[in-house]
Structure formats: structure tokens, C-alpha cells
């Protein structure tokens, strides 16, 4: 497929113009704090008012039907402008694609608009203490009840759940079934009776995720996504998506690499080619990720397991880029600030959404065609 970059230029100009006028001059407080969460929610409302919060969605749900290329362009402009982090991303990037595939029209109409506006912020609730990358060993249960389901058990590492409104994830609805079977994918309220949330601080102390305890939490049938018992398949469709471009758009790394080049100009010792080479590599890799993104959206076939290739690449790039920044800062590298926050965020990359070890297994098996093996 031919990508007409120039056709996206007027959209790019509009986005750039709007962002220039609206991006807050001083950064919002960290979205991993209560105060910051509220500020970021307000920012989502503002984006939504300009129909820029979910550009690739259909218009009826608050989007503008943007092409994949336009979405990439939006992301480039968004991060280049230094605009706030997206507090709604768990919903927009992980739940919405699942709904577009498995949701009923009623669910789409009910769930998406308040997601687009930031009115309802979603938390992903997949992991459990005994089930990190090994999703098939989930144990939190959904039991049939009158007109719905009762949730019991525990989820953990639920991103954003310290402050979010609702959560989504797979629960075991048939305790007798084999590992991958008998799961049901549900949406649930975080403020309902029976839900206890315990915020968990990440290594910079910010409550970026939470532990959730369920005690007979009622979920009506209309909040089941896909068929009961089919939760594994539903979850896997999210996973493929999560590992593709949506979770980390090229724009994010292009902007970070540009800021790194700027940091190098300001603080770098021009004669230190060791650091200069690492800055160059970060820039080159961000550019590679961008070009690979264009390649991906130009293709008409299913990228399938290649999303695992992407995930290994961006997560390693992100860590390397931020390590370079900290090293550039020398003894200031350990100090709180934008770069340190980015570094802390980057460290989660090789772990979550399936560790990079799992991704390499997937690459070996499904891209390279190596024999399946006990890992």
C-alpha cells in the first residue's frame, strides 16, 4: 500500500496548531498521583472536546475515523508537543480494541463515549499473585448469579487502579476447566461494595498500580465481553494489540530521542563520543521504529506474532534511551525529574504485557518456526 504522507499533512498541521494552543505550559503533576490523575482527566476532556482524544475511533463514539497513518501522525505531534501522558490509555488501547472486536452494539454505545471523554477511566486487571506472564493460571473467580456474576479473589499490578473508575479482565468462571478454558472476560466497577483496592507504589513511590480484592462483587451480564468461557480468546486479542504499535507509538520515542539529542547539546561534552554514540543509537532506533510503523500499516496481512518483535524492540530502546540520559546527567542522574520518571517508567517495559523472555519464545516459535519446547 502506498502511504500518502503529504495527505496527512493538513491533519498534522491542525493537530500541531491545536496542541500549541492548548498544551499546558507547566507539566501537569504526575498522573500516578491523586492530584495528577484529576488534572490528566481534565486534560482528556479538553482533548475530547476537540475530538482529539481517540482520533482513530468512529465519529459516533467521539473519534474522527482517522486512518492508521493519521493516528501515527497524531501521536508524533502529540509527543513532540510534550503533551501530558494519557491517563485513559488502558481503556483506549487495551479495552476499546477488545470491544470493537467482541463487544455488543449496546456495550460500544454505553462504554466508549465516556471512555473517550475521560469521564470513566479504566484499569487493566489481569495479573494475579500467582499469574503474571502465565495468564492461564488465573484463579480469581466469576460465579453465576441471578442476572450476572459474582467476582471473588484477587488481582494485582493493576495499572492505574489506585484512582481509576472501572476495571476489566478475565476471571475463572469454570474452575473445572483446563488452564486456557473456563475464563470469562468482564468489566466491573472499582467503587462497588465488595471491592477493596490497595495502592502499590512503584520504585519511585508513586501508586502506579494497585492490588484489588473482590468479595462477591456483582457484575451484570451486560458487562461480559464475548461469550462466557471464552475469556482467553478475548484476552489474547487484546494482547496482540498491546504488543503492536498501539501500546507505544513511534511518536513517543521520536520525541524522547529528540529531547535526548537536545539534552546532549545542552549538557553533553562534545568530545565524549562514547555518550554521543549512544545518543545517536537512540535516535537511530527511534527512527527505525517509526519506519517500521509505516511499514506495518502499509501491509495488509495480519502482523500476528511480529508484535512480539515490536515489543522487545521498543522496550529495550526505551530503557537504553533513558539510561543514556541518566548517564549524560552524571551525578544528577539519580535526582527526581522528567528523565528519572521516564527511566522508571521504561523499566517496566521489558516486564509487563508479557516479559521479553516470553516474547522471545513467541518469536522463536511463531516467527522463526522453531520447534515448540519446554521453555
Amino acid at each position, binding site marked *: 500500500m502506498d502511504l500518502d504522507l503529504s495527505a496527512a499533512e493538513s491533519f498534522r498541521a491542525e493537530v500541531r496548531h491545536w496542541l500549541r494552543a492548548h498544551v499546558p505550559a507547566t507539566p501537569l503533576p504526575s498522573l500516578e498521583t491523586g492530584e495528577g490523575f484529576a488534572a490528566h482527566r481534565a486534560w482528556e476532556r479538553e482533548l475530547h472536546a476537540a475530538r482529539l482524544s481517540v482520533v482513530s475511533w468512529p465519529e459516533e463514539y467521539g473519534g474522527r475515523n482517522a486512518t492508521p497513518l493519521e493516528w501515527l501522525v497524531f501521536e508524533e505531534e502529540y509527543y513532540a508537543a510534550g503533551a501530558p501522558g494519557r491517563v485513559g490509555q488502558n481503556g483506549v488501547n487495551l479495552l476499546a480494541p477488545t470491544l470493537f472486536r467482541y463487544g455488543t452494539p449496546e456495550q460500544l454505545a454505553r462504554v466508549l463515549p465516556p471512555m473517550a471523554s475521560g469521564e470513566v477511566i479504566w484499569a487493566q486487571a489481569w495479573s494475579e499473585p500467582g499469574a503474571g506472564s502465565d495468564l492461564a493460571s488465573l484463579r480469581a473467580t466469576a460465579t453465576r448469579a441471578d442476572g450476572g456474576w459474582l467476582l471473588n479473589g484477587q488481582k494485582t499490578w493493576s495499572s492505574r487502579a489506585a484512582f481509576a473508575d472501572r476495571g476489566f479482565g478475565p476471571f475463572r468462571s469454570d474452575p473445572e476447566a483446563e488452564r486456557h478454558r473456563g475464563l470469562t472476560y468482564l468489566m466491573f466497577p472499582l467503587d462497588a461494595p465488595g471491592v477493596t483496592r490497595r495502592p502499590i507504589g512503584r520504585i519511585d513511590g508513586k501508586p502506579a498500580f494497585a492490588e484489588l480484592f473482590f468479595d462477591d462483587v456483582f457484575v451484570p451480564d451486560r458487562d461480559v465481553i464475548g461469550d462466557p468461557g471464552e475469556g482467553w480468546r478475548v484476552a489474547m486479542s487484546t494482547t496482540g494489540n498491546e504488543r503492536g504499535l498501539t501500546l507505544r507509538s513511534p511518536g513517543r520515542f521520536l520525541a524522547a530521542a529528540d529531547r535526548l539529542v537536545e539534552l546532549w547539546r545542552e549538557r553533553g561534552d562534545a568530545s565524549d563520543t562514547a555518550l554521543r554514540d549512544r545518543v545517536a543509537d537512540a535516535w537511530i532506533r527511534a527512527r*527505525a521504529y517509526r519506519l517500521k510503523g509505516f511499514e506495518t500499516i502499509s501491509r495488509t496481512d495480519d502482523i500476528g506474532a511480529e508484535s512480539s518483535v515490536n515489543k522487545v524492540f521498543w522496550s529495550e530502546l526505551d530503557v537504553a534511551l533513558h539510561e543514556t540520559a541518566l548517564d549524560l546527567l552524571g551525578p544528577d542522574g539519580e535526582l527526581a525529574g522528567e528523565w528519572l520518571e521516564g527511566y522508571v517508567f521504561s523499566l517496566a517495559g521489558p516486564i509487563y504485557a508479557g516479559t521479553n523472555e516470553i516474547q522471545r519464545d513467541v518469536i522463536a516459535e511463531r516467527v522463526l518456526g522453531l520447534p515448540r519446547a519446554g521453555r
Partner: protein
Amino acid sequence: MRFVLDAEQRLFGETLDKLLTEAAPFGVARDWAAGRHEPGLALWRSLAGAGVLALAVPESAGGAGPLPVELVTAFHELGRHGVPGPYAETVATAVLLGRLPGGSPASAWLPAIADGTAVVSLALPPAVPYALDADVAGLVLTVDGQELRAAVPGEARTSLDPARRLFAVTPGEVIAEEAAAAAAEGYDMGALVCAAQLVGLGRRLLEVSVDHVRTRRQFGRPIGEFQAVRHHLANALVGLEYARPLVHGAALSYGTPDFARDVSAAKVSAAEAAYAAARIALQVHGAIGYTDEYDPSLLIRKARALHSAWGSPAAHRARVMSALA
């Protein structure tokens, strides 16, 4: 703008793949290394017949180019098959000659490059100090300051890649004045096609390694079942998967002010990815990959040689940064 090959370009690549598979180029490379050039020169003429060299020659001089996307497509296949000969040098020379101020007598070589009757070599010190295969080239050039000059080859030097026969050169007769800008463009195109060649050979090494680990058994299992082996190969793939779009992207930016920067980004990435693939191929093959007689080891050696050919990764990183900062 096309970030993937179109149907015609894909077909071109497949045609070359087929042509090269039939030509059994590993044998050709071994003959070439031993100074038996005829099979290699016959392959040169076949490839020219398929249009490869015309891609670098302007239409005005009987060519079809320069067509950078088609060139990198072709060099990807040259790399995959380990074809010997001064292809990158000839392409760089064609671009250089095509950019000389009109009417330079040297431009007379262009039609012969396009149709494959001229094999050309080139030294561009300091990044390209030796002229590859100067002994089989009908024309050997070098650039000395602003001047394009004939080059007089000295003794052959031995490379780790036995099919790369390198010659120090002495600048001779002046061919053209004020050739520095043309030479810079020739250098960029040489580095670009070298990057494409590296990605192709890295890919081939990965394919060969995957085949090997599926069949080689140790401790009662195919070694491809060991997670360490699997992850080595997955890492090789990741590197190559992201080098390829940089090469393609650099080809797309031919004719823009970003070309030199983008070529450098592509060469860094291709050199590192192909060299990593070669080290991994060696590691998963064990001793067999370390032998002269195992054909893919020719690619392992070439990966190391091309790593620093047409500008080292360090030199190209420096170019990227000076374009940025």
C-alpha cells in the same frame, strides 16, 4: 510514499533470488577467492542483464536510474547469496560519474557499466582506502581532494573474507576536477547498498541457523529447543527487522538533504545487526560454522568485513550526530 516494496519490486527481488540460487554463488565466491574470475564475471553479466547495474546509471547514459529502492532490493539479494565482486564500488562509481558536471569524458563509461561490460572499482579514502577487486576492474578510480583520478592498484591484500581482494591504490591521471560533491554522493550510495547487502546476508545467516538448530541434536534434543539458542536467534531477528526499514527509508530519502544522515543511520544499524547475526550464527553452529569449508561461513566472514567497509559504525554515528546537533 511506499514503505514496503510494490509488486514489481518484489518480483524483481524474487527474480534475482532465483537467478542467484541457480548460479550457486558460494562456489562462484570460492573460485573468485582463488583468482578464478570467470564464473564471477559471467554472473556479473547475468545480473547486469537482469538490470541490476543499470539501476545506478542515469537514463541519459543508457541506464534506468538512479533507483535507490530497486538498488537496495538487488543488494539485499546479492548479500543473501554472498555474491563476490565490486558491485557496490561499481554502483558508487556510476552515481559519481552520473553527477559529474556534464560532458566529462569519464561519463563515457556509464553505458558500459549499465550493460555489464565494464567492471569498475573505486577507492574513496579514508573510509574506503582500498579498491576491491581492482585486478578484474576495467576502470579503477580514486578521489584525491577535489579531483577524480585514475587509480593505480598495488599489491593485493588478504581479507578475512577470501572473496574480498583489496588493493591499495596510488592516484594517477586526473579524470575530473571538482568532483568532491559527486564523490560524496557516490560514497553515500555505496554505503547504502553495502547496508542492504549486510541486511541480506544477516537474513541468510539467520535462515541457515534456524535450519541448523532444527536438525542438530545434542543432549537428545534438537538444539533449537534450548531457550538460550532460541533467544539468541530471536535477538538476531529483532536486530535485522529494524535494520531493514532504515535501509528502505534511506533509499526513499535519496535526493533530499537527509540522504547522507539516513544512509548513515542505515549503515550503522545494518552493520550491527548483520554482525550480531553472524556471531550468533557462529555460536549456534559451533565448530562447523568456524570452518572454511562450510559455505555459510563465507557470510560470517563477510559480515565482519563489511561491518567496517564503506565507513565504520563509529564514523556513521558521527555523521548522524553532526546532522542532528
